[in-house]
């Protein structure tokens, strides 16, 4: 990794009807590691990720990933999502239903590399414990397995930054804890910085080194995991942060 | 209700008017169309009292099926098949039709349904050019539609009746079908008796059409006498 920050974003985006638009103002940055975008649902977290991915065009502001400008309203710059090399795992995993597991993982690779035994594909399937499902179709997978495939698919194209939108929403707590470990280890191994959206303080605390808080369409504060303390107290009662692995590296 | 060939749509109104001028004449309503199509309507049970076609075959078919009275069948007038073209178009004759300029078409009535087309096919077959003209002939749904192709300048020539082009400025007669290959074009009528007017009234109207009283009107519109064309 160079000196450049993994992500610098400062923008305003507005969606919905002109009469009653929903406006989001976001400011976030990440030098390396994992950033949690934390806040209640409807606070503009998912929209923020979509803007960084290039799926939505901000009304104004700037976005840089790894030092490269991807969006700049003043310079009229808007790099389309397919040229950003920014990975994105949408809320509902969105596996291609007509593709087997390995085809999903290999989807973003050049035509010649789309093989189940290609090192990138086979490596990711192995890492994420999906080898026995190589030829399975998505409809037969459990929620956790689908998330692993979605993660492998996003990482296969070597993104400079990975965006995850409520990645483990539909998975039970036990499964979620297991996947937290998998995600942490995988991101570390690939040295891929990541931004993930969550409304679960336990999840944020388990995964993130940096935190940005969202409230009513606005990023309010950013800092270390200590920002999560008030929310964590609500979840587990008195402050006794023994069981929580805050994973400072 | 009288069903009449499209080629009679000028002379019949005059004849109906003349007929109605007689004090005791009942009302006559005329429906025009291609003879083949009108015959279909009669067979389908349409409320038609009498038919007046430009060709004997459909009338005889109705008689053969018991749908028209054989004793009422009569030839009331004759006509002539002509080749017409747009004013200023290429000069063509029945014999030179095979040398129709490239890209040009000849309009004829659909031979199965339109008597003028039936006669045209007869002429072209007798002249040996029917086969050669395949793909160069556009079929009109009735004789008016056939003539309309010429009037809109879409075709170089059309086979229609002499009486159809009376008084038309934009159409010229290129050639008249004369000689032993020329068809005998007859206007044939018969009572069907399945309409609301009643058989008696229908017979009365048809008798008038064949009468010496109606003859000058037929002639005025270009139709020939039944006996000698």
């Amino acid at each position, binding site marked *: 990794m160079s000196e450049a920050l993994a992500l610098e974003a400062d923008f305003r985006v507005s969606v919905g009807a002109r009469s009653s638009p929903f406006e989001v103002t976001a400011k976030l940055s990440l030098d390396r590691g994992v950033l949690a975008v934390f806040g209640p649902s409807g606070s503009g977290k998912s929209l923020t990720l*979509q803007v960084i*991915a*290039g*799926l939505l065009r901000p009304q104004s502001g700037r976005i840089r990933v790894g030092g490269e400008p991807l969006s700049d309203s003043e310079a009229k710059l808007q790099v*389309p*999502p*397919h*040229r*950003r*090399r*920014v*990975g*994105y*795992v*949408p*809320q*509902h995993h*969105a596996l*291609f*239903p*007509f593709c087997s597991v390995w085809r999903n993982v290999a*989807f*973003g690779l050049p035509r010649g590399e789309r093989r189940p035994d290609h090192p990138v594909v086979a490596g990711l399937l192995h890492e994420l414990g999906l080898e026995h499902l190589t030829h399975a179709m998505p409809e037969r997978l459990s929620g956790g397995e689908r998330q692993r495939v*979605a993660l492998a*698919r*996003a990482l296969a*194209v070597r*993104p400079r930054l990975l*965006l995850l939108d409520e990645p483990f929403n539909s998975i039970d707590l036990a499964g979620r804890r297991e996947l937290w470990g998998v995600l942490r280890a995988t991101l570390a191994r690939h040295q891929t910085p990541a931004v993930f959206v969550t409304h679960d303080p336990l999840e944020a605390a388990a995964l993130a080194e940096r935190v940005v808080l969202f409230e009513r369409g606005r990023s309010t504060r950013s800092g270390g995991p200590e920002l999560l303390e008030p929310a964590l107290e609500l979840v587990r009662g008195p402050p006794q942060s023994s069981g929580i692995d805050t994973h400072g590296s | 209700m009288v069903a009449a060939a499209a080629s009679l749509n000028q002379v019949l109104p005059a004849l109906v008017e003349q007929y109605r001028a007689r004090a005791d004449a009942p009302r006559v309503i005329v429906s025009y169309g*291609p003879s*083949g*199509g009108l*015959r*279909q309507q009669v*067979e389908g049970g349409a409320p038609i009292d009498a038919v007046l076609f430009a060709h004997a075959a459909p009338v005889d*078919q109705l008689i053969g099926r018991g749908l028209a009275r054989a004793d009422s069948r009569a030839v009331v007038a004759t006509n002539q098949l002509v080749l017409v073209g747009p004013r200023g178009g290429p000069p063509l004759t029945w014999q030179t039709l095979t040398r129709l300029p490239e*890209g040009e*078409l000849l309009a004829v009535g*659909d*031979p*199965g*349904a*339109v008597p003028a087309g039936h006669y045209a096919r007869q002429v072209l077959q007798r002249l040996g050019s029917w086969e050669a003209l*395949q*793909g*160069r*002939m*556009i*079929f009109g*749904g009735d004789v008016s539609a056939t003539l309309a*192709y010429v009037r*809109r*300048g*879409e*075709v170089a020539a059309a086979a229609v009746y002499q009486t159809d082009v009376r008084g038309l400025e934009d159409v010229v007669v290129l050639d008249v079908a004369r000689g032993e290959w020329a068809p005998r074009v007859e206007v044939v009528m018969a009572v069907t008796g399945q309409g609301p007017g009643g058989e008696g009234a229908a017979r009365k109207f048809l008798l008038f059409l064949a009468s010496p009283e109606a003859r000058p009107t037929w002639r005025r519109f270009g139709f020939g006498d039944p006996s000698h064309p």
Partner: protein
Amino acid sequence: MNDPVLFPIGLSLQVATLALAAVVVPGVALAWLQARRRYPGWSLVEGLILLPMVLPPSVIGYFLVVGLGRNGALGRLLEDTLGLRLIFTPAAAVLASCVVALPMLVKTLQPALAQVPRELEAAGRTLGLGPLALFFRVTLPVAWRGLVAALVLAFARALGEFGATLMFAGNIPGRTNTMPLEIFSAYQAGDDGRALLYVVTLTVASLAVALLASVLSGYRERR
């Protein structure tokens, strides 16, 4: 295909195939545009697409003759510049079929494209797929049943075109007499045997198409 009885069958198939080939690219593009984009004039375009479906075929035929006939503005232009005359040619039959096949294709495909989950496309885009690759590798594979249904219905509509074809291509035996025209001509002539052959052919073809389309759209709903 020189047999005068078989000719209309072969001609109809050719005309419908060419019409389908001509409308498939603009039709799919239009369906995508209408399903996925909102822009000023969207409703107007939507209305124009529907127009041939609600207009009487004779009105379509009239527009074609007036516009592209020998004395039509566009027809004259084509003839003067390119030496091209459309009216009363097999190409005119193809064009008449295109006019009715296009809305059928667009209107059948549009809802299928609208149902493709946005998240799937978002995933595809962030995996590096440009607009065309995205359409062929994500959108179409999801909506393929809708596409096949749209194609067969458009083909059937093209195959059955009568009114506008009669007016714009005319009934020229051996050249433009498609099955529907032949049925009408045979019926007028009282030649029920000849009509029946084409009636049966068209009925069987249309029935097969309708069944296929309903099976495909049934699948789509079940998903």
